[in-house]
């Protein structure tokens, strides 16, 4: 990697959990597999009612175990998978070493976390479910998505002035 590429990677890593660490380049159609995973993911979101405003309200009122069960078992399976990947040094399907990015702590985790939690309870959706709701035909949610994009944009604008 040359210096400008390194700088770019650093910037993409900044406050973002998902970063393309791979140095390989593939023909464009290799990206279709992410679309397929997304489709399956979207179906689970809707069918398990994770994208339901009502289920989120139940969660924050301790009226239902459903969402806790989902998040808890997802973490359990995710953690076990990562443990296996690390333990047996499993590689990607292209033979690369798997890189897991974890973020250092900053105060934004607390302030931003509280803000997102408030938005989550009001809209009844985190970013993934917002997109799934749009897919179900709830066109008004497009306004929520645009609003979320503008929220992200204003964060980018004010970033240097916010406590981190």
């Amino acid at each position: 990697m040359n210096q400008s590429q390194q700088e770019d990677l650093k910037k993409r890593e900044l406050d973002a959990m998902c970063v393309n660490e791979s140095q390989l380049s593939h023909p464009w159609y290799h990206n279709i597999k992410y679309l397929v995973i997304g489709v399956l993911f979207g179906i689970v979101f809707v069918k398990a009612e994770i994208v339901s405003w009502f289920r989120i309200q139940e969660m924050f009122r301790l009226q239902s175990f459903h969402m806790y069960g989902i998040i808890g078992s997802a973490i359990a399976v995710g953690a076990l998978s990562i443990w296996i990947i690390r333990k047996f040094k499993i590689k990607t399907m292209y033979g690369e070493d798997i890189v897991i990015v974890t973020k250092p702590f900053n105060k934004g985790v607390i302030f931003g976390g509280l803000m997102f939690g408030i938005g989550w309870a009001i809209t009844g959706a985190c970013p993934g479910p917002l997109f799934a709701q749009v897919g179900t035909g709830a066109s008004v949610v497009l306004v929520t998505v645009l609003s979320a994009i503008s929220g992200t944009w204003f964060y980018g604008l004010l970033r240097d002035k916010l406590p981190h």
Partner: protein
Amino acid sequence: MLQILQQPWPWYIAGPLIGLTVPALLIIGNKNFGISSSLRHVCAACIPAGIDYFKYEWKKEIWNLLFVLGIIIGGFLATVYLSSGEEIIIHENLRTELKGYGITDFSNALIPSDVVSWNQLFTLKGMLMIVLGGFFVGFGTRYAGGCTSGHSIMGISALSWPSLVATICFMLGGFIAANLLLPIILSL
């Protein structure tokens, strides 16, 4: 078989399937599971406006936008082909509480049609629910560096303690908003 799929799926099926997304994305292309960054990539692609935070090669993160496009398509497919068409069954206390705010339409299991609709968009209540809520999601996730998928599932799975702190703050914010803030908004 189709009838089983059309019923709401239980948590012990859905949760593990979502957890499996973590190794799936790592193995097919070394991608760290996360969704909210897609909002940042949209900003970088469409309205960077010279802001340093949006000046990066977003095309290298195109996989994330395709993943999100897939979620939209998945939502569509689930509704068209796997819908049972039944009303959502919710906790009796919640039903009573919502009735007090005039929310009685449960035909759409995913959103409260009485307050989140095009008709309501230009009322104060609708604005707060749709526009302000969305803004908080977009601003908050980026400020925190991730959302439920990136922090709560991917981060905690990787045993990263800042992600645990983030998740506790998500839940705290949610509890405050659902129990103290939302009753005020919905009473407007």
